C-alpha cells in the first residue's frame, strides 16, 4: 500500500481524508487506483496532476516507482512562464 | 493611393524607392527595402526599437514619413559594422552579454552610437536618460549601461 497526501480542496471528494491509501507500485497504478476508489477525483486526475515523490516534483512520469517508504503527495499540474 | 518616388541615401548608398504618402520610414525600410533590422515594437515612438539616424540625428523611424527622407542621409543598424568588422559597441554588447532576446538591440546600438558621438564620456546617469526611449524588457538595462561605458572607454582610447 502507498499513502498519498491530497491537497485540501480534493479531500471533500475523497471522504474528507487528507491521506488515502491505495495499492500501487508506480504513479500510473496510483492514479488509476485513486480514480477508481474515489471517482470524485477522476476529473482532476484526467485534467492532469503533478506528484511529489520524497520532495521531488514530477509532472507526469507514470512508471516512476513508489513504495510504502516514500512520501507521495498529489499536486496540481504545474504551468510556468 | 498614388506612390511617390523618393531619393535618399541609406548607409552611404543612394537609394530610390516608391512609397505612399502616409507610409512611415520604418515601413519603407522593412517592407520596401528589406532592411528589417529596425523593429516595430509600438509604432508610436514609445519603445525606440525602430531607431535610425536621419541627417545625423537619432529618430524613431516610425515617427518619420518615408516621403520626408527625400535627399536625407539615413543610417540603420545594417550599416553599423564595416564589412566583417563590428563597431566597438556591437562587439562589446556581445562580449558583455548586453542582450538577451536581442529585439531591442539594433535600436539601442544606434541610440548608444548617437550618444557617444555627441558625448564620448557620459556618466551612467547620462547613458540611462539618453536610452530612456529604448525599452528593453529582458536585461533590466544593467549590462546595457555597462557595455555602453566599456565601449565608450575603448573608443576614447582608440
Amino acid at each position, binding site marked *: 500500500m502507498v499513502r498519498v497526501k491530497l491537497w485540501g480542496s480534493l479531500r471533500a471528494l475523497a471522504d474528507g481524508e487528507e491521506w488515502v491509501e491505495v495499492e500501487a507500485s508506480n504513479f500510473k497504478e496510483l492514479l488509476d487506483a485513486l480514480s477508481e476508489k474515489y471517482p470524485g477525483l477522476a476529473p482532476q486526475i484526467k485534467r492532469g496532476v503533478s506528484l511529489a515523490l520524497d520532495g521531488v516534483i514530477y509532472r507526469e512520469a507514470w512508471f516512476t516507482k513508489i513504495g510504502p517508504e516514500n512520501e507521495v503527495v498529489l499536486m496540481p499540474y504545474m504551468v510556468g512562464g | 493611393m498614388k506612390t511617390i518616388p523618393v531619393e535618399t541615401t541609406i548607409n552611404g548608398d543612394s537609394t530610390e524607392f516608391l512609397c505612399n504618402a*502616409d507610409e512611415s520610414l520604418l515601413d519603407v525600410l522593412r517592407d520596401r527595402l528589406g532592411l528589417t533590422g529596425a523593429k516595430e515594437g509600438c509604432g508610436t515612438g514609445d519603445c525606440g526599437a525602430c*531607431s535610425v539616424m536621419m541627417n545625423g540625428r537619432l529618430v524613431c523611424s516610425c515617427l518619420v514619413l518615408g516621403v520626408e527622407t527625400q535627399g536625407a542621409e539615413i543610417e540603420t543598424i545594417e550599416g553599423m559594422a564595416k564589412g566583417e568588422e563590428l563597431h566597438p559597441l556591437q562587439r562589446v554588447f556581445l562580449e558583455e552579454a548586453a542582450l538577451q532576446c536581442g529585439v531591442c538591440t539594433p535600436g539601442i546600438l544606434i541610440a548608444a552610437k548617437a550618444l557617444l558621438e555627441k558625448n564620448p564620456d557620459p556618466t551612467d546617469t547620462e547613458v540611462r536618460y539618453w536610452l*530612456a526611449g529604448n525599452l528593453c524588457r529582458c536585461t533590466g538595462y544593467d549590462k546595457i549601461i555597462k557595455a555602453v561605458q566599456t565601449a565608450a572607454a575603448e573608443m576614447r582610447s582608440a
Partner: protein
Amino acid sequence: MRYVKPESFEAAATLLRDEDGISRILAGGTDVLVQLKAEMVEPDLMVDLKHLPGMREIVAEDGGFRIGAAVSGAELGEHAALKALWPGVVEGVELIGSSQVQSRATMAGNLCTGSPAGDSVPAMVTAGAVARVQGPDGVRDVPVIDIPTGPGKNSLSKGEFITSIYLPARPARAADAYLRFIPRTEMDIAVSSAAVSLELDADGVVTSAQVALGAVAPTVLLVKDAGEALVGSKLDETAIAALVSAVEAACNPITDKRGTIEFRTKTAGVLAKRAAHIAYTRAGGQA
C-alpha cells in the same frame, strides 16, 4: 493622403485654406504620426513646411530670440545663448519625449497639438512668448497663451499655421524654471506641471513673477495671483504658502488614468514651489 511641400508660406496658407478634407501640418510629426498609426485621424492633406525659410533657425531679435517653428528640441537644447536666457523654456521643450523624439519634436507642434499637458507650453506662457502666425490673409502675432483653446484644439483659423515663436529679452537677475510630475523618470505625459518665471531686484526681492500650470485644466493656466504672491518677497515661507494655495485654488483638473483631481492639485502646488526656488536661484537670488 497627399503630401505637399509648398514653395512659400503664402502658398501653404492658400493650400490649407482651400483643402476641403482634413489637413495636417507636419512639423516634428511626433504627434500626427502617432494619430495616423492609431487611426485617430486620416488626413487628406499633409503639408510639410520644414524646408521654408526660417523654419529651422534660431535668430537673435531685439534682445530675445525668434525660434523657427520646425526647430527641434535637440537643436534648442544645443543653443547656449537661448538656454542662458530662458532656461525654463528650454528645459520644458527638452522634457518632451525621448532622445529620438527630441530630434523631431517642436515647440510650435507641442503648442498647436493643444494638449493641456504639453511640456513646452507653461514656460512659454510665463515667458510671454508670442507666436507668429501665417494665414491666407497675411501674418499676425499671437501671444502663446491664446493659441490653445482646449484639449486637441487651438485658436488658429483654417489656413493658419505658426512660422516662429518669439521669446522676448530679459533684464539681468531674471530666470525661469519648469518642472513636471511623471510616474517614471522619462517617457511619460505630465500628470501636472508648473513653470515659474521671476525677475529680481539687486537685493534679491522678486519684482515680477509669472506662474503657469499644465495638466490641471483644459488648457495651460497662467495663474496671476500665484505670481503676485511672490512679488515683493525673497520666497519666504509666507510667500511660498500663498503661492501654493493660489496654485491649488486655480487647479481644475480631471481624474483619469494618469492621475486624480487630488493628486494633480497637490503636486501642482509642490511643483510650483520647487520651480520657484529653482528660478530664484538661477536669477541669482540667495535663498
